[in-house]
């Protein structure tokens, strides 16, 4: 197992290195001069322009710029935003809480609904209920979430007036940042439970929009994984012994069916970030996704570069952990993967 882990880590290094090169080069290919963008309407006096370029370090050769980017990144310094003049790492951490909170709410929605749906569909295999549940899941899986978000707003905010249209909490409440999770921080604010109520109402729609595709994937995966497990000898033995059905399902089958489900959810991290970009844009959710889209429009090099680097590193790390867990649970996989 140790050699396996070591081999996998060795394989990760070139990929991570490649990501830094890609992030660095791609961003410099984006047309538009960040210095001009910063100078804006004040016009471009050549002397001011040159000075600014020097201050930003953009006058140096690309290789030097890249070396600086890498050395700093390894020390956790991702540079300074050209627009806000704040450290990219600080801005990232400030917004990451919002995205993480939304992502966790979305995953919770997906798992809490998806696993029971999958289990029921598997138990009622090829019945009307199964067809209905799997049909609905496929609709969810095909959902254009940028549209789904708007439809949810249309139904629950515009027509029924149940939830706010955008943001994390009503502007009426003042919440100090403690954990970065609005649902927790709001409880510590002056208005306590009222503020929490507002935050909870704000997160429901974006979480549902973002969680719909993961929900569909979880339900489909749970069903097929359960079907595989339910067909195995030990389940038949348990049935023959007269073990109650519920016990068979939850104690014997579901526990073993969970491994592939967790694997799939782990590997979905990348698509969850994709979901965050679209969901945050629609619901004006002040997280990473919205921030990166805004930064691309503003040609804020360090932000996009740092953002891509951090997100890619997270995706690679999570995939790595999922692989390890899988290999640990399934020794046959260790030889095959190199």
């Amino acid at each position, binding site marked *: 197992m140790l050699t396996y882990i070591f081999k996998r880590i060795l394989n990760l290094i070139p990929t991570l290195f490649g990501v830094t090169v890609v992030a660095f080069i791609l961003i410099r290919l984006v047309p538009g001069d960040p210095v001009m963008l910063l100078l804006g309407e004040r016009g471009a006096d050549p002397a001011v322009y040159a000075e600014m370029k020097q201050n930003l370090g953009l006058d140096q050769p690309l290789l030097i710029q890249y070396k600086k980017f890498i050395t700093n990144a390894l020390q956790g310094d991702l540079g300074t935003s050209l627009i806000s003049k704040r450290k990219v790492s600080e801005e990232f951490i400030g917004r990451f809480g919002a995205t993480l909170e939304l992502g966790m709410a979305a995953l919770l929605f997906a798992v809490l609904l998806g696993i029971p749906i999958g289990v029921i569909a598997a138990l009622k295999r090829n019945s009307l209920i199964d067809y209905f549940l799997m049909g609905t899941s496929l609709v969810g899986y095909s959902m254009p979430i940028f*549209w789904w978000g708007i439809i949810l707003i249309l139904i629950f905010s515009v027509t029924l007036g149940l939830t706010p249209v955008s943001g994390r909490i009503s502007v009426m409440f003042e919440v100090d940042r403690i954990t970065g999770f609005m649902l927790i921080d709001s409880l510590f604010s002056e208005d306590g439970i009222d503020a929490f109520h507002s935050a909870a109402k704000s997160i429901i729609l974006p979480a549902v929009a973002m969680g719909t595709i993961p929900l569909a994937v979880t339900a489909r995966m749970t069903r097929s994984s359960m079907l595989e497990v339910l067909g195995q000898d030990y389940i038949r033995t348990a049935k023959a012994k007269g073990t109650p059905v519920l016990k068979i399902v939850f104690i014997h089958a579901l526990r073993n069916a969970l491994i592939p489900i967790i694997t799939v959810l782990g590997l979905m991290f990348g698509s969850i970030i994709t979901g965050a970009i679209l969901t945050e844009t629609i619901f004006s959710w002040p997280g990473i996704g919205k921030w990166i889209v805004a930064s691309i429009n503003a040609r804020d090099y360090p932000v996009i570069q740092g953002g*891509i680097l951090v997100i890619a590193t997270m995706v690679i790390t999570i995939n790595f952990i999922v692989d390890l867990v899988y290999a640990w649970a399934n020794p046959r996989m260790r030889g095959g993967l190199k």
Partner: protein
Amino acid sequence: MTNNIAEIFNDLKKNKGALIGLIIIIFFVFLAFFGPMLSPFSESELSQHLLQDPFWGSKYNANHLLGTDDVGRDTLSRLLYGSRVSLFIGVFVTILSGFIGTLLGLLAGYFGGTVDKIIMRMIDILMALPSILLAIVVVSILGPGLVNAIIAVAIVSIPSFTRIVRAGVIDEKQKQYVQAAKTFGTPTTQIIFKEILPNCTAPLIIQTTLCFSDGILNAAALSFLGLGAQPPTAEWGIMLSDARSFIESSPWLVTLPGLCILIVVLSFNLLGDGLRDALDPRLKKGK
């Protein structure tokens, strides 16, 4: 894994979902080809009737079956024209990514060693970046527009083709018919394209279907963010984002284009699921 077309089709016919998907796809292709002839107005023709409801609404104008948008363009006509754009996107994304992805997969799988390492490292890097994020960056380099959005979405779709083909090639190349072809001195390109590739088609067909739906979905998302096709093109993603400001007064204006995207994507996924059941021998035995 050799399947003849008739057998696949027979399996498909038994799968109601796949059949429904296939029928919707044929209908969609039909609309894309004959849409302009069927549509009452052109995609950019303006009228004085602004923001009319569809025929089931109260503010309905008999000339416009599905209502009009904020500058008086006919929604039905624009939806019909939009089907062409979506079909165009799906076809080109699939051809582009399928061609490049398959080629890379064949090379990596057949030659192995350093070639494999370099190609798969590149694929790993592509896969580490969330698809929409990568597509957004590519589009901001190339500039917004339909063709560039297609290129961006195609790049994002390459990895799945490469991985599927590579796995198939690694499986096939150890088999005796490939060894035999080698001993006969068959040229390498012929072994790859004439011997191995035809035996990897089953998973490729499934991937093609899924790429089509993913491509349409991603391109629409880019248009929605203002990075894909540009107004006044009648594209479903643009129609959707244009209509957002009128969500309270004309909810159908935002509902209909999204519904079109959903139905088309769903039909390709239905077909893909059906094909998987029909082509995967392991699943067949289980039934």
